């Protein structure tokens, strides 16, 4: 703050100095990973099977149940006497079968080299008709979808793709030119970012609306179909400049790029040693792994008091004036509960300390002014005009005046 405001303030003697000019500065940290960024190189390295295929069938089955037990190993029951089950019990799963069209990395399932069935949490509940378990962070596949998928630990993980929806690339026909092109799980163009000095990367471009992206079917359950809706009251928006960082991947170009990425991230020996990918079998009972329930660490937090070297360069008198004014400002801010509108007059300070006198509801600035006068009458009249019906629910909005 600028110092002149509180130079003569009478509260100064009571203020505790809380401004620390020096402190330990913690090391600068990287921000959390971008949840939507596509690190194609890491993803290629991580996946144990990368392929292009078309969904030919989606079926659903619940996981088996495991009754929870206490420390002595005895089954436990809820307050109504019903058995309690471990997390993952009776959990609906989708079994999505792809016809494999091209393999970029890994080996196909031994049992069915031309097909793979992925197992993913979510879908209609076999034991409760009409009920569906849905996970907003997971991709949704329907028959006919054509995708490039980065598979990781199929049948083990709740979503068997690297970074869930990020590990799915969709193939759609571009309505503008009729060419097969690559989009991400939510319908954004996938771009080829060419770098001269470093390796090429993948980024996200323009959104294209495809009905298939915003509609989620669940097999033969017509009443289970979901639609993702956007806000229904869009204003007209003027197009703004858009400079994509690279061309939109065609299906063919993506084929070539992925082949290149795999070759760069693996040796032929590594690829040769890879075991066949596991394909899920819906005919077999299965168990879903439980999420444990654990205490999060409590990390001690010390505020960092950043030094302000520029203050040290000021004449001592000026520096002290600034610090004193800041102390007063902080004191008042604490009194207002963080409201930056601080009292500046004796009346406002009195109201902050003691509250407004009864009947003082307004003033020249629309706030109590320590007088009961025509401003208060005008405010009440305005209230009456806006709210004369006690049954009107909008009246409660006037409680704050």
């Amino acid at each position: 703050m600028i110092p002149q405001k509180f130079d003569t303030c009478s509260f100064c003697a009571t203020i505790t100095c809380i401004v620390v000019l020096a402190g330990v500065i913690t090391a600068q940290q990287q921000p959390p990973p971008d949840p939507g960024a596509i690190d194609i190189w890491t993803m290629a390295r991580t996946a144990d099977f990368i392929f292009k295929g078309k969904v030919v069938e989606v079926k659903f089955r619940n996981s088996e149940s495991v009754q929870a037990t206490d420390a002595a190993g005895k089954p436990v029951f809820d307050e109504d006497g019903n058995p309690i089950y471990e997390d993952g019990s009776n959990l609906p799963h989708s079994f999505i079968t792809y016809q494999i069209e091209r393999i970029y990395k890994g080996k196909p399932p031994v049992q069915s080299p031309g097909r793979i069935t992925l197992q993913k949490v979510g879908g209609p509940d076999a034991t409760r008709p009409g009920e569906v378990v849905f996970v907003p962070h997971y991709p949704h596949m329907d028959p006919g979808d054509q995708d490039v998928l980065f598979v990781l630990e199929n049948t083990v993980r709740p979503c068997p793709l690297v970074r869930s929806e990020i590990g799915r690339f969709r193939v759609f026909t571009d309505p503008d030119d009729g060419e097969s092109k690559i989009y991400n799980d939510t319908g954004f163009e996938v771009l080829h970012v060419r770098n001269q000095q470093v390796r090429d990367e993948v980024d996200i471009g323009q959104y294209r609306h495809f009905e298939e992206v915003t509609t989620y079917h669940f097999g033969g359950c017509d009443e289970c179909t979901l639609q993702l809706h956007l806000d229904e009251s869009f204003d007209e928006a003027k197009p703004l400049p858009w400079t994509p960082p690279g061309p939109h991947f065609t299906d063919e170009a993506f084929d070539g790029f992925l082949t290149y990425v795999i070759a760069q991230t693996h040796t032929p020996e590594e690829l040769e040693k890879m075991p066949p990918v596991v394909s899920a079998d819906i005919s077999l009972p299965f168990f879903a792994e439980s999420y444990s329930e654990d205490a999060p660490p409590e990390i001690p937090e010390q505020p960092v008091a950043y030094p302000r070297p520029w203050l040290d360069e000021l004449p001592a008198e000026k520096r002290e004036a600034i610090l004193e004014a800041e102390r007063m400002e902080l004191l008042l801010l604490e009194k207002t509960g963080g409201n930056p509108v601080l009292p500046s007059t004796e009346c406002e300070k009195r109201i902050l300390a003691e509250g407004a006198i009864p009947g003082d509801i307004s003033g020249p600035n629309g706030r109590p002014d320590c007088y009961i006068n025509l401003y208060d009458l005008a405010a009440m009249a305005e209230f009456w005009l806006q709210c004369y019906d006690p049954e009107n629910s909008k009246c409660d909005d006037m409680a704050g005046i």
Partner: protein
Amino acid sequence: MVTRVDRTKAKLFIGLVTVCLAACNAVHAYSHYHCSNNDRNIRWSDHNVNWRAGKNSFASTAWRNALTTANSRWNEAPGDFTFGIRNWGEKYVGRSNSQNEIWFSSKSSLLDGAPAICYWRYYCAGTSHKMLEADIIFNTNVSWSTTDTQSNKTPYGGSLRPWGATALHEMGHALGLGHVNYTYNIMGQDWNHIHANNGIVRHYVGEDAGHGAVHLYGRTKTTHKNDVAVTHWKYRDAGGEYSRHEPCRVYHNDNTAVAREDFNGFKRYLVKAGQTYKAEFTFENNGYYDQSGVNVAHYISTNDNITTADTRIRTGTMTLNRNKVYTTTHTVSIPADLTVGQTYYLGVIVDYTGSITEFAENNNSTYLPIRIIP
């Protein structure tokens, strides 16, 4: 119902990822889910969720307070929906057990490295359109912060992710909202959807998700329905399903960006005393009612505590409706008597006259650090 025309508009807008200068007011744009068979919003019929909080996860006071705060932030939002606590100390948590539970898990592999995940169960048969169950699971392997201290949070160069912001994001899913990637909002990248002033951060639902909650549940029944706010973060672009956010900027009068440098985990802008610039901030109406004639003032301060006690350098008014995130610039003159080499804070206060009674008054001011150059 969304018509084809609406979709075309959406299509036009959604792809707009650009440099945001003056008057770049991102149109609001929450997303949610419909039952296709009856074209109705999927939502909770009783307008509330009361969590069963995991026994180990929420054993400590710090974590209980953090969850209570997150609930209260949604409860003050303008939609008629509330989160509460059914019980602490839930011994047996699980997905798909018809109970609404919230807990932490160390099974990072199941979470795929994600900080958190939300599972829900719905029912659309006939005319039904209801949510039946929601579960939220957080990753213990993330370095979380439960406090409101600014300096050690990831958006400000620290190492701790603000748990409250991620909790609000997942709770948004739990009440029926989807991801949004085309405006500054909590249902995008949550960790830098945040307000800061005086070394204190405040995570919040924000205009877009709050507007979505109104769409799904109608008007809140709380007494105070108004809130205007300002933050120094803005929409950057889309990263997959998520909006990405970045610090607001200072611009020259020709709309070129003023040079900036790293400063205490944030950015500091290099400006000259006595010159005019365009200061960018994001203004939101997080309450129910539209507001016109909102008094907005800019200030110069010696510290990051922006209040009306600082030196006011500009006043004006804005209209803040509950349908837009207003990232915009105002022309300000840097006082000629500021000292070269010194760091100041270019502050802003929305409703600096205190005319609006709000459910949160402590999100009305923020700043951009500046350094005076010769």
